[in-house]
């Protein structure tokens, strides 16, 4: 397969196949460093704190959160949407970029998908915890019961149950199916021992047979084909939690695609935040290159701009609608008591990513890191703005109210960070963070060594 010489190599440092395996599996061998232990300990601490906050929530009741009769959802659902959004990058990278033949996905899809799975786990916690009666949460499943009562298929929350669990399952399968050849690689590097046995079991007996590869590729493509609309559907359905209502600021038709764009936007930001650190810590600079970062930044600017246009569209339509409630909702967003949240959102989501129009910034790791964190913050506030500022002043001014979180809500949020990073630290320790086989498959077309060769050949 020919690749144009003006394209940047995706693997630098003139790597051979063997070097690829060696480089990527290196962090898993030997004793983990102090940094790793410190990180894991911090994550576990946060997790424990979150656990305590969850205990308080369940034991005392949702009253331990800052919600009230007007604002039924606050940090909890904000965090839910935020985490689900972050959980969109992985599958987007592996599925949609696969369909669009974007080869640069190979270096980052593995870890991005892992993040997806962990983020969805974190996200899934919130709809459970925000229930007033968590122990009866199983009512949401349509199971035959003595009352002969099923569930309400009209409810977007119920759609969420299906969407999130399907998304989690499919993402997990997709991720794991991609992982087995690499687990096979690790297995084959290990000498006999318990570790080898575990990896052997985990590898499902992967052999690398050409027949298996053919089937694997075919399956991956179809899975990608399925996962692509799935990614769209998940955040679309999440958006419908709001958009199906009649609440001004919630009920707007642009929500499904705009939420998806926002999700990819925030997901990419989170992947960037973590990958910039990880590539440094695990010495993967040759695999996750500045070129990769730039490509991701391009996605960020695209999705960020889509989100920005959606903001403006909403704003204009609120005015254009001529509806008192709609108009007020948007004026209130910008100039009401929560104006600061709105302007944080606007600054972080619309203005900062525009810096990526400059190639220098797009290719600067430091700038990217900072902007990615801005985007993470901005996207959190976007959900906060949508949920809280829409609810706190809706139709009847008599019920207007204010909301601020309690330590319990903050604690649960911190706890999900603990969960996410605990999983992430374990992941980088026990699994290869870059898809070994996939990088090898593009090495010839996009490796530095081969591109140079190709270019010479042409001339």
């Amino acid at each position, binding site marked *: *397969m*020919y*690749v*144009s*010489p*003006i*394209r940047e190599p995706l693997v630098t440092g003139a790597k051979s196949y063997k070097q690829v395996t060696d480089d990527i599996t290196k962090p898993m061998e030997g004793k983990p460093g102090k940094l790793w232990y410190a990180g894991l300990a911090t994550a576990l601490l946060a997790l424990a704190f979150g656990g305590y906050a969850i205990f308080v929530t369940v034991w005392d009741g949702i009253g331990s959160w800052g919600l009230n009769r007007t604002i039924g959802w606050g940090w909890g659902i904000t965090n839910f949407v935020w985490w689900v959004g972050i959980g969109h990058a992985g599958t987007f990278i592996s599925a949609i970029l696969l*369909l669009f*033949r974007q080869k640069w996905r190979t270096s980052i899809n593995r870890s991005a998908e892992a993040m997806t799975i962990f983020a969805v786990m974190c996200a899934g916690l919130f709809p459970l915890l925000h229930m007033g009666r968590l122990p009866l949460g199983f009512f949401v499943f349509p199971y035959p019961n003595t009352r002969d009562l099923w569930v309400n298929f*009209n409810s977007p929350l119920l759609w969420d149950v299906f969407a999130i669990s399907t998304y989690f399952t499919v993402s997990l399968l997709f991720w794991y199916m991609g992982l087995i050849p690499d687990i096979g690689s690790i297995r084959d590097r290990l000498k006999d021992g318990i570790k080898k046995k575990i990896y052997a079991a985990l590898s499902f007996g992967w052999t690398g047979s050409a027949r298996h590869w*053919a089937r694997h*590729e*075919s399956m*991956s*493509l179809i899975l990608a084909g399925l996962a*692509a*609309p799935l990614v*769209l559907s998940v955040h*679309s359905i999440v958006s*419908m939690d709001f*958009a*199906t*209502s*009649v609440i001004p600021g919630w*009920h*707007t*038709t*642009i*929500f*499904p*695609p705009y939420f998806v764009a926002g999700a990819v936007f925030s997901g990419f930001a989170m992947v960037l935040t973590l990958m910039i650190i990880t590539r440094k810590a695990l010495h993967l600079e040759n695999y996750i290159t500045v070129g990769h970062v730039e490509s991701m930044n391009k996605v960020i600017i695209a999705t960020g*701009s*889509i989100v920005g*246009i*959606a903001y*403006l*569209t*909403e704003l204009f*339509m609120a005015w*254009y*609608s*001529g*509806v008192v409630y709609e108009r007020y909702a948007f004026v209130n967003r910008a100039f009401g008591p929560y104006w600061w949240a709105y302007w944080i959102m606007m600054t972080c989501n619309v203005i900062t990513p525009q810096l990526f129009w400059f190639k220098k910034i797009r290719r600067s790791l430091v700038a990217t890191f900072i902007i990615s964190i801005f985007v993470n913050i901005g996207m959190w506030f976007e959900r906060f703005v949508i949920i809280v500022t829409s609810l706190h002043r809706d139709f009847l001014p008599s019920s207007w109210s204010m909301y601020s979180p309690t330590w319990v809500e903050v604690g649960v949020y911190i706890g999900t960070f603990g969960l996410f990073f605990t999983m992430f630290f374990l992941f980088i320790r026990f699994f290869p963070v870059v898809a070994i086989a996939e990088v090898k498959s593009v090495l010839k077309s996009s490796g530095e060594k081969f591109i140079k060769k190709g270019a010479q050949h*042409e001339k």
Partner: protein
Amino acid sequence: MDKQFVFSKKMMMVILLFIIVGVLLTITGLFVSHVEANRLWANILLNGFLIVGLSLGAAFFVAVHIIAESGWQTSIQRIPEAMGSKIWLGAIMIIPILFGAHHLYHWSHTEHLDHVLQLKQPYLNLSFFAARMLIYLGGWTFLFYKIRQVSLMSDQNPDIALFNRLRLFSGIFIVFFAITSSTSAWDWLMSIDAHWFSTLYGWYTFIGMFVNAIAVIIIFLVILQKLGYMSHVNDEHLHDLGKYLFGFSIFWAYLWISQYLLIWYSNIPEETAYYVDRVQGFETLFYVNVVVCFVAPFFALMSRGTKRKANWLFYTAIVVFIGHWVDLYLAIMPGAVGDELSAIGLFEIGLSLIYVTVFAFFVFKALAKANLVPQNHPFFKESFDYENIK
């Protein structure tokens, strides 16, 4: 591969024939059925927007692929380029609606506006409307003219800097288009139902025109292939175009259902009024629209094999094209004409035939101007050396 397209006399005659047929149909239509002024103007808007949409969709296709540094599309780039360079033609076709605005846009009757429409006056007034129209059409025409110009220049000049200029203009075009595609859809289509609003409307309209442009690109491609050109385009390219048609048809359906579901669900009269008009007065077309625009391409292009068959693709593309014509019809007629006075008769068919064939004529002319494959394109070679995963 370096074959230059020759717009033969024979072809011109065929196209002329089509135009004549169109004119005859139109005139017959005018005599057979009573065509109200509203219906006349609505059809002018429909066809004008159709042609603008085709050019714009194609222009966007080119720009987005340039900016995304996509390789495969180099092989067919000249077709959307030719289409995109005809935005001026669309502009000529759509600008006349300014003279029929009173027949199309309820809000232009400033003498008796209700409260809500009065509130909208700062935006919905004829002079601002006309100004915006000129900005949209002028902007698109100019920016795409630059893209086309640079693209043609690079046929002679292998300088990579030209490619960077191409990227720059594509970028500007996309930014401009991102905003104006929505606002123009609000202006020209959404404001027909002046009270109604939907935030998704702009994007929905955009996806419609994009899918339609892809369908027409396929149609042109297959026609050229039948005429013995574009032999360099292989199954892989067809496969990719098929995937596009398939994928964006699904995406169109996704936006369609998103808008419909949310409005259906909340059932607020100020929003449902739009769909009630369509479901009640145009029930068959309403469902036909979904079937033709989504179900048909979905099943037709589901399998790998069909995407790689030129004929199969060609006919699917025609079906999709008709589907999006219906989509536009549904966007315009219920509000501008109403279910009692509108119909799809000889007049509609004839008029659209005229517009489409005139457009085709100019596109063929544009195709004849340059090599069918962009020379010196940095992804030129890459475009012919790739393979779809099975």
